[in-house]
């Protein structure tokens, strides 16, 4: 797999492009069967196909339900399959059309939001129609999100399906807000690069064959792993018109180096993933509207698409890119990846000029973000080890919300900084000396990546912690071990200005659970601390209680609402472990381990995740 930059280019002939009816139809009564709309949609599809082929790139054509009723769209797909080797696949996007509306009597169009009964009806209808037209069932499908029950049904009924677009990275409350609280794609917390979804939860990768849903999932777009986490995700992806949406271009020259920087940073990820890197571009026709899109005229929309394809084409000519259809990619992925091999991304800011660096880690047991600008604090944590069954759609407890719950999310539940009172979610450490206390969240640094067998290590540059009469030089090393649900964190006291001094390192994790910005009920959570033959527990009741054990080795929280058990532990005999309950204004819990250390000593702790039944 050495130095394979795999790229999927996907086009969908959408007869009623998202946005187009709203944009081009302004001032007119809704009519999704307008001839002008259909003609324009097909023109966009033809342009996209031609642009890819002109640059020597093959595509995956994801036929929409609506396009299956259009002879021209069908004949283009057949011809391009013959001539260029494009894959003819089937999208579950693009359902809206006259035929769909008349049959299902609804304006819903997001497959994951339908009731399970309707999902099955629609899938059977769409797959049946596809078979009627092409004489075979597709190998690839997708939507913005594919919930596990939907995928399991499709795989069971149509086993030819091996690849699907299954989530859009960090498209959740932020996208909802950006769209004036009117865009209901709530599915934060998934992988950013391809993965094999588990049968239990799409976002959580399968750990083994028994959990394997049978498909390889790809994300909808390759997104900026730093910019998307805080800002509007739809401005920062390998979608040229997203870059225009973010106004990340020069208005005079129409240049957008950020698009190429983003593609190149994705290419760079091969360094952390055994030589493999990935990109996908999937521009819906609504983004190439002849009326222009917001302040970008059509000519700029068109140019950006041509430039994006030209860059991929150039990389291919240089032997730096392998274009694949989705089905080909699924085969490639299965041939080259194991279930437990993690996806790693040491990622730097390439847009704002902040010099910030983060690290993302994803495997079947967790997704975590480490922020070097906050001393190596873990600022996002999703406990995939729980493989949480989370049904989505009408008739389930989660009609729209498909996000995988977090334990830590520094944007939705603060991080180090909170207003006035309380704490935010973060996994960090405080160094304490003579009544002074410094949190490593305030120690900005960078890291390098090392792979040692099954260990992926993040080795941070040492930081200085200055007390009134003591300077401590400390280095953090964070280790993720393939096949394990533990994160090992070492704090090495490299040097102290007074070699005889002792400092206390307070390792802590402030956490809660949720999928949005708003707090959940913490009742039902149990905290427990144990070690030295003793134990103590707290049933969460917002009473601000605390328990500690000298010689304690383990602090644990069980969160029944997300079937998750999280622990912070140490193997040191002389540490103190503690648990802290929160209160109504700070609905969090804290797990911690404190240990006194001298120069050249190390504090080692493990954060462990497990399913709590």
């Amino acid at each position: 797999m050495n130095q394979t930059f795999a790229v999927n280019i996907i086009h969908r002939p959408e007869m009623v492009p998202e946005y187009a009816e709203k944009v081009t139809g302004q001032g007119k009564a809704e009519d999704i069967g307008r001839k002008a709309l259909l003609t324009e949609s097909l023109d966009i599809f033809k342009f996209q196909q031609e642009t890819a082929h002109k640059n020597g790139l093959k595509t995956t054509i994801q036929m929409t339900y609506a396009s299956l009723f259009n002879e021209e769209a069908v004949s283009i797909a057949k011809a391009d399959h013959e001539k260029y080797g494009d894959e003819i696949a089937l999208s579950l996007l693009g359902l809206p059309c006259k035929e769909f509306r008349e049959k299902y009597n609804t304006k819903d169009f997001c497959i994951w939001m339908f009731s399970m009964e309707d999902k099955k009806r629609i899938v059977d209808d769409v797959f049946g129609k596809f078979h009627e037209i092409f004489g075979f069932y597709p190998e690839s499908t997708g939507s913005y999100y594919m919930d596990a029950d939907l995928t399991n049904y499709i795989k069971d009924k149509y086993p030819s399906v091996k690849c699907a677009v299954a989530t859009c990275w960090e498209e959740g409350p932020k996208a909802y807000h950006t769209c004036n609280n009117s865009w209901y794609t709530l599915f934060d917390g998934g992988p950013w690069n391809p993965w094999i979804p588990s049968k239990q939860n799409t976002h959580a990768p399968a750990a083994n064959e028994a959990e394997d849903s049978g498909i390889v999932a790809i994300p909808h777009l390759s997104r900026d792993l730093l910019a998307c986490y805080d800002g509007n995700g739809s401005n920062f992806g390998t979608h040229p018109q997203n870059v225009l949406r973010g106004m990340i271009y020069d208005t005079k020259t129409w240049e957008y180096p950020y698009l190429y920087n983003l593609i190149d940073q994705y290419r760079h990820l091969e360094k952390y993933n055994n030589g493999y890197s990935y990109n996908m571009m999937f521009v819906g026709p609504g983004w190439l509207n002849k009326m222009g899109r917001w302040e970008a005229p059509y000519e700029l929309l068109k140019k950006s698409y041509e430039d994006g394809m030209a860059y991929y084409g150039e990389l291919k000519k240089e032997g730096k890119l392998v274009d694949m259809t989705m089905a080909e990619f699924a085969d490639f992925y299965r041939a080259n990846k194991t279930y437990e091999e993690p996806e790693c991304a040491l990622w730097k800011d390439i847009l704002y000029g902040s010099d910030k660096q983060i690290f993302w880690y994803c495997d079947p047991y967790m997704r975590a973000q480490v922020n070097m600008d906050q001393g190596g604090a873990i600022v996002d944590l999703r406990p995939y080890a729980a493989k949480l069954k989370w049904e989505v759609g009408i008739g389930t407890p989660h009609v729209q919300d498909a996000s995988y719950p977090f334990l830590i999310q520094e944007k939705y539940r603060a991080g180090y900084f909170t207003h006035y009172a309380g704490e935010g979610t973060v996994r960090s450490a405080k160094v304490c000396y003579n009544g002074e206390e410094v949190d490593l969240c305030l120690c900005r640094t960078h890291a390098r990546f090392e792979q040692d067998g099954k260990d992926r290590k993040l080795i941070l540059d040492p930081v200085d912690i200055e007390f009134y009469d003591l300077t401590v030089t400390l280095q953090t090393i964070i280790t993720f071990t393939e096949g394990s649900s533990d994160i090992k964190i070492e704090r090495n006291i490299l040097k102290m200005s007074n070699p005889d001094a002792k400092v206390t390192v307070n390792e802590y994790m402030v956490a809660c659970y949720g999928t949005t910005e708003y707090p959940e009920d913490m009742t039902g959570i149990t905290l427990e601390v144990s070690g030295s033959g003793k134990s103590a527990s707290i049933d969460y009741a917002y009473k601000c209680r605390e328990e500690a054990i000298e010689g304690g080795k383990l602090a644990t929280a069980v969160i029944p609402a997300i079937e998750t058990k999280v622990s912070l532990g140490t193997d040191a005999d002389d540490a103190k472990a503690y648990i802290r309950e929160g209160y109504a204004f700070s609905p969090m819990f804290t797990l911690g381990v404190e240990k006194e250390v001298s120069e050249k000593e190390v504090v080692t702790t493990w954060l462990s995740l497990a399913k709590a039944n």
Partner: protein
Amino acid sequence: MAQSSKGKLNYRCPMCFFRDLDIDMFYDKDKKEYYCLRCQYVGSEEDVLAKNELIRIKYGRMMDRITDFD
């Protein structure tokens, strides 16, 4: 006063964009100004375009071609 409509290009409110909101503006042809339904922004096309340039100050490296990702 006649109803408003979209302009020839579909401008977003620059003030809302500053706070990560994409809100289409409408054009009041009597007052010859764009206005935002959500916030209190009003402005001519020139003003919208000038504010759109200001928006870009947050992208400190927008025009840099980056080759070092370590």
